[in-house]
């Protein structure tokens, strides 16, 4: 029991130390901003107050919630299309040969360049933001899924065939779980990409959303407002990633022992 207790305490200590870094940064920010004393560099507390005001005011409904919705929708579409295509491409060597160069080309396109095109196609609205997210977030998912699928042990596929698994059941019961550690790695990258692209697309032509709000606030000299927006974005990123990790740990619980423990993040 003492061991378990000690383990619990050291975990608690580790978490506290992790948060301590954040506190140090906040204090340093506060001191520096107070010392400089310029409106273009609001203090930490001013920014926090601005962020709270955004979350409790009408901006929540008009900008923050739409941004969250777009990010999630863009991410989910990327995941569905990326995993499906990745499984097929990873499993089929011919498909890999045919798509390799095309995908290398497409995924090298800088996403912000696609915003003007997306605006022409979809207009200044949420659909444009979602479409832009998909063009960027799909790649880490697709490529990780394809890599995970193509590197499945031949013995594992042989075993599956021995038990009569083919077609859909082969994919769902063997290929997908076998590739899932790599798929999850791709999904996690894609989630943070989704958030970044959401902000960029909204800044360049969203018409609404947290990115749109931040660039608007900055242009109208509402500096503390834009800092508040940045704090909300950072919190969103942290919340998304934390929720994702909880989900991942649940789904990949079986993997814990096979790779000598999951990497803590």
């Amino acid at each position, binding site marked *: 029991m003492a061991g378990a207790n000690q383990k619990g305490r050291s975990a608690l200590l580790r978490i506290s130390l992790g948060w301590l870094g954040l506190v140090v940064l906040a204090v340093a920010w506060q001191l520096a901003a107070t010392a400089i004393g310029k409106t273009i560099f609001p203090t930490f507390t001013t920014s926090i107050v601005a962020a709270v005001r955004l979350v409790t005011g009408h901006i929540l409904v008009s900008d923050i919630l739409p941004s969250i919705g777009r990010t999630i929708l863009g991410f989910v579409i990327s995941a569905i299309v990326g995993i499906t295509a990745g499984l097929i491409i990873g499993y089929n060597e011919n498909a890999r040969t045919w798509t390799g160069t095309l995908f290398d080309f497409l995924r090298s396109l800088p996403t912000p360049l696609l915003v003007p095109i997306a605006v022409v196609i979809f207009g200044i609205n949420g659909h444009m933001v979602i479409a832009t997210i998909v063009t960027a977030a799909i790649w880490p998912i697709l490529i990780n899924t394809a890599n995970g699928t193509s590197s499945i042990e031949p*013995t*594992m596929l*042989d*075993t599956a*065939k021995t*038990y009569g698994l083919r077609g859909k059941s082969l994919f769902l019961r063997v290929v997908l*779980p076998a590739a899932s550690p790599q798929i999850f790695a791709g999904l996690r990258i894609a989630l943070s990409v989704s958030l970044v692209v959401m902000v960029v697309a909204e800044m360049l032509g969203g018409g609404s959303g947290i990115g749109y709000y931040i660039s608007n606030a900055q242009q109208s000299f509402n500096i503390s407002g834009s800092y508040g927006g940045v704090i909300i974005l950072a919190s969103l990123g942290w919340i998304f990633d934390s929720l994702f990790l909880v989900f991942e740990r649940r789904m990949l619980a079986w993997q814990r*022992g*096979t790779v000598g423990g999951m990497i803590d993040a």
Partner: protein
Amino acid sequence: MLNPVLDIKNLEVSIRSRDGFVNEVTKNVTLELAEHEFVSVVGPSGCGKTTLLRAASGLRMPSGGKVSFEGKPITEVPQGISIVFQEYNKSLFPWLTIGKNVAMGARAYPNAEKERRVGDALEQVGLKGFATRYPWELSGGMQQRAALARAMVSNPRVLMMDEPFASVDALTRNHLEDVVQSLWTDSRFSVLMVTHDVGEAVYLSDRVFVLSARPSTILAEIKIDLPRPRSQMETRKMLRFVDLQAEVLERVEEAGRNSVGTEADE
């Protein structure tokens, strides 16, 4: 032989490499497996034993010849043939518990029957109480026993094993050999085992086939007339065992001498 369970006739397997070069792996292999017979195939490493087993089980299409199971030519792995692979850690599904892994082999049965069979199979290999564990929680020998339970749960006519005990330590290997032997003694299935361990082949088998180097053909067939039941302590001490082992070993060495310079793919 009258009505063999497995009938391999003039089997030929060629592998086409990436640059289009056709590599003949086995040539003209003929082998019959009677009901409740234990047959081993030994040969120098890289001689195509695994390829032979893959073609014999239906995992790979042969480029020539024919494999029949219960009188019917096979085009895929038929129900009634189970396979145990050397690498249990790549063959057991790591995301499934031991119980669910074993249940994979019993997919054809309704749920209640499946559950009973999984329980029985685990008990037979001495893994009762491990159904809810994951493969990584078990030792190598226990994992291979789980793979064996998965192969046995469907009550197969033929059990094929590819170097089944090559990845465990010597003591565990002896134990696993006896687990297989007692399963086989208590049941009616036939075994086709591929191994490079001559002693193991002699200890377990009714007949041992020696494969030549690539393109491999059957170099010798040696009948193992050791009395059954056999035991590690008693049988391996017998003069007859030592003689037979020496005879098989001699043929394998002979095959190996001709294979110097042949690349190995296994």
